[in-house]
């Protein structure tokens, strides 16, 4: 990202770019570019035969404008993007986009920067893409997050409401994420909840996988529309499969080989983390195939259970992270569902045993056969 050609500063929203020239300038070979297109078709769960199509589409691409808003966040998604695994090509593809506003990386500051944003909204209504990172607080009029004197919800309404589409980068922007965890002091919500009228595509994850962001944008550039989504607004190509069903440790799950203690033999041998509270069975994300950091690793691969970070309200519903089941409301931290269940069954047995003893010594209450009715 970062450096943009001069021609886009005042130009119209859509322009032809000579991608081949840009690639050559950056020292990227055609072969690397084709490799990138193949990787993208894989990320999009398309057949390999789509790679040339993607290449052609990217060659002839029109340039949409992109603005990146940050609200209650840690900038982790920006970090993930800046450290993207395929920096050369992915960066250039993102360079195709005219990133007119991004607080972390733009050179402009203050009113000048805000003016750039206002200009995009004014001049490219319904055409630009907004990316949002971080949750939006609604409590007390939204005062807990202000940029340039305006509340996050106010900015989001204007920017996301007028965008062609909004991509939420990370769980906070998608569903409120960690700022929305109980007791949610700022009344944080995701973009769709804050701006119900906006067209939103959710890319949750903590952080999101930059490959999925690139793939979503490539999908948009190639097909001219947004990818199909699930009921949580997440693209199916990236969130259509459950982690548990694609996990490299799944054979150990099916066999019956589990890590029972951190650092035990099973852990060292790479057995399944189910007993250690892995939330792979309730989380939808392509981490097992797409992975992070140049496809070198991902949490379960590194020996830590999945915490379900790409699911709505994960901080509240997936905890305790190192237990399979949530705590039963009203009971202590150490009380598991099974302890409660066993207690209940034993109490029942005891109560009825007592009832039985009394009944056995009680006479004169016998009857002789049921009454006919």
């Amino acid at each position: 990202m970062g450096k943009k050609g001069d021609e886009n500063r005042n130009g119209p929203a859509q322009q032809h770019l000579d991608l081949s020239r840009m690639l050559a300038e950056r020292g990227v070979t055609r072969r690397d570019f084709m490799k990138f297109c193949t990787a993208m078709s894989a990320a999009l769960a398309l057949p390999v035969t789509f790679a040339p199509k993607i290449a052609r589409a990217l060659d002839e691409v029109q340039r949409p404008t992109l603005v990146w808003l940050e609200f209650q966040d840690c900038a982790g998604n920006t970090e993930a993007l800046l450290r993207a695994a395929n920096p050369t090509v992915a960066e250039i593809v993102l360079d195709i986009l005219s990133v007119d506003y991004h607080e972390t990386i733009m050179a402009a500051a203050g009113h000048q920067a805000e003016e750039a944003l206002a200009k995009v909204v004014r001049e490219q209504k319904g055409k630009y893409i907004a990316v949002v990172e971080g949750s939006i607080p609604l409590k007390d009029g939204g005062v807990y997050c202000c940029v340039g004197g305006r509340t996050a919800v106010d900015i989001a309404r204007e920017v996301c409401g007028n965008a062609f589409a909004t991509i939420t980068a990370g769980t906070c922007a998608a569903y409120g994420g960690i700022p929305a965890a109980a007791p949610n002091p700022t009344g944080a919500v995701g973009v769709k909840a804050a701006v119900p009228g906006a067209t939103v595509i959710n890319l949750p994850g903590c952080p999101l996988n930059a490959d999925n962001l690139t793939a979503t944008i490539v999908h948009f550039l190639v097909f001219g529309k947004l990818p199909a989504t699930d009921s949580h607004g997440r693209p199916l190509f990236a969130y259509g499969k459950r982690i548990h069903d694609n996990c490299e440790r799944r054979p150990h799950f099916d066999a019956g080989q589990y890590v029972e203690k951190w650092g035990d033999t099973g852990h060292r041998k790479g057995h399944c983390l189910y007993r250690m509270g892995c939330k792979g069975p309730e989380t939808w994300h392509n981490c097992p195939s797409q992975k992070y950091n140049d496809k070198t690793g991902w949490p379960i691969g590194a020996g830590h259970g999945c915490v379900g970070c790409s699911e709505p309200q994960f901080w509240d519903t997936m905890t305790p992270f190192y237990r399979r089941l949530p705590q039963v409301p009203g009971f202590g931290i150490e009380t598991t569902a099974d302890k409660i269940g066993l207690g209940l069954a034993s109490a029942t047995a005891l109560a009825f045993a007592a009832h039985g003893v009394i009944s056995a010594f009680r006479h004169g209450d016998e009857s002789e056969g049921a009454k006919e009715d």
Partner: protein
Amino acid sequence: MAKPCLYEKYIWEVPVRVSHWLNFFSIIILSVTGIFIGAARTVALEPSQFVMGWVRFVHFVTAYVFSVSVLARIYWMFMGNKYAGWREFLPFLYRDGRRDMLEALKYYTFIGRKVPNPAGHNAMAGTAYLAVFLLYLVMMATGFALYAEHATGSFLHRLTGWQFVLFSNQGIRLTHHLVMWLLIGFAIHHIYSAWLMDVKERGGVMSSIFSGYKAVKAKE
């Protein structure tokens, strides 16, 4: 006064008894496999083994048997004789039923000495079975929702998906797990009450669920 004649009356029809025993065996199998699924231990030496795989397979096949049995029994509430009928499970909706409930409650709490002894279910038992049938439906709804998770967008997933909108995924799992313990608690109570009534009513409740017949006094 001459003792009224006792005769064997056909109370529990075949579908009632078949569904009762299918439920009995399914719940045992589902609980044993379910406890293993919930608190898995390392049982395999080789990754090529398939212990958890088989346990889950047995759980799911039994789950289908159980569901068909429960649905068939619900169907029979409308098609079978009056002892199988849905009114037996809702005694609190009508006056006689409420009176019978009170009597049964008095007997169970040692306040009254008159053992309830109807030909079918006593009113308290009927109410308890209503609760149990609701728990069965909860198990089926949550179970099939969890089951459908491996096939996103499938028919079953869309059929059960509303639960994930209303409750969290983990909440559904916890419910599925906790209700098992409620059913185990019910089983303890159920076997005890059947024994108690067998002894006190002397109508042969215990054998009636095998044979279908109970000893009933002829009207004078």
